[in-house]
């Protein structure tokens, strides 16, 4: 006699591995992530319906999923693609460094840290600003060190370009995505002549002015980079620039309003 029930039991099979994550993503109980290329190699980009929530160098998917769960208390599952709503802005940020307005989900961060990150996101590619400038810009002058900590803990590097905020003395400072050296790599990839900038900073030069327009800028501001050598004025402080009859650039805002 054929044991039909026993043979029927062998028809029981495990569900495909993507089914459980798919259900959780569709009920909104899981966040998702994709792997995207970047100047530092492939990165994992996790996102919620609001925007990008975590970025790491792509290494071990299981480790990334575990860290995500531990940090946000939400399961994370791989997705095939970014939603159409997020994809263009995220790709602009990762591929071209155009981070202004990139959708990020900064829920769970302090108001201070979120303000630091939002301001940093507006620094154009290939340009840098000192920590103290960010502190001034968000209305917290003197909080340079806290700004540095907030940027070091940036959960969404590249999408929020914390690599564009550097020390006042011209050294590039810490960087959270992989090694500190990646900061230089990213800035060079964005077209910044890092050594020239470091040379100026090492001589104590903080601002560059144009003798024709009488406007002064951060040295990496796109307007400063257009000043011809013969018309270039160097300043150690904003006060010195003002005393020489120069006004601050409206784009790079060398002196907080």
């Amino acid at each position, binding site marked *: 006699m*054929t044991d039909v029930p026993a043979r*029927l039991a062998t*028809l029981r*099979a*495990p569900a495909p591995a993507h*089914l459980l994550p798919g259900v959780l993503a569709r009920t909104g109980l899981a966040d998702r992530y994709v792997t995207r290329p970047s100047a530092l190699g492939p990165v994992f980009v996790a996102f919620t319906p609001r925007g990008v929530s975590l970025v790491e160098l792509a290494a071990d998917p299981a480790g990334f999923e575990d860290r995500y769960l531990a940090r946000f208390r939400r399961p994370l*599952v791989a997705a095939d693609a970014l939603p159409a709503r997020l994809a263009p802005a995220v790709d602009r940020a990762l591929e071209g460094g155009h981070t202004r307005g990139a959708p990020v989900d900064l829920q769970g961060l302090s108001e201070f840290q979120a303000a630091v990150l939002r301001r940093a996101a507006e620094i154009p590619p290939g340009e840098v600003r000192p920590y103290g400038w960010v502190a001034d810009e968000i209305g917290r002058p003197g909080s340079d060190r806290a700004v540095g900590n907030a940027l070091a803990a940036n959960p969404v590097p590249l999408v929020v370009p914390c690599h564009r905020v550097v020390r006042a003395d011209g050294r590039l400072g810490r960087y959270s995505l992989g090694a500190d050296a990646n900061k230089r790599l990213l800035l060079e990839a964005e077209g910044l002549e890092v050594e020239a900038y470091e040379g100026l900073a090492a001589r104590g030069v903080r601002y560059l002015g144009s003798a024709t327009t009488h406007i002064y800028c951060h040295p990496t501001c796109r307007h400063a980079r257009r000043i011809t050598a013969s018309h270039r004025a160097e300043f150690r402080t904003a006060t010195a620039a003002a005393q020489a009859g120069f006004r601050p650039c409206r784009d790079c805002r060398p002196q907080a309003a």
Partner: protein
Amino acid sequence: MATGGRIALEALPAALAADRDTAFPHLVRALIDGIYSGALRLTGSRADAEEVAQEAFIRAYRALGTYPPERIAGLRLREWVWTIAANLCRNRARSRRRHPEEPLPLDSGMAHPDAGPEAQVLAAAGQEMLEAHLDRLPWAQRSAVVLRHVAGLSYAEVAAALARPVGTVKADVHRGLRQLRESLEEES
């Protein structure tokens, strides 16, 4: 994917009543293999089985959001989710009959991964034969047999999920098994 420890099915109604979003992934994990395997045999297609399983859990999740906690705490979860899944399977089986398409290739060679290649081929052939005979049973018998012997529900659970009296379900399973046995023995 790690989501902490597992919660046993018996403890889940209380956990879902207390915190739906935290407990729900445990519910899916506890039931998904059975729902998928059963749906695969009731729809005959992996794509349909995946869709049925997804849809059943999403409907369950939405329903839980509308139930008061006392109702959730009293749910018999396996039969409840299967009530939804069995209806979805039945609707698909009907529309498939109206709009027939090429059946998808079914899993094969999975049942005896340790056996040699020849034995695997034989086992796969036997498996396909069983599946083919199962697919030819009338819905009443097929649904009862699949829920009882593929998905592993008790008779009481099958009866609740299919909204039929327990006695009827037992008779359906009995007839279905007898038919399968005869068909299989005729062929060998």
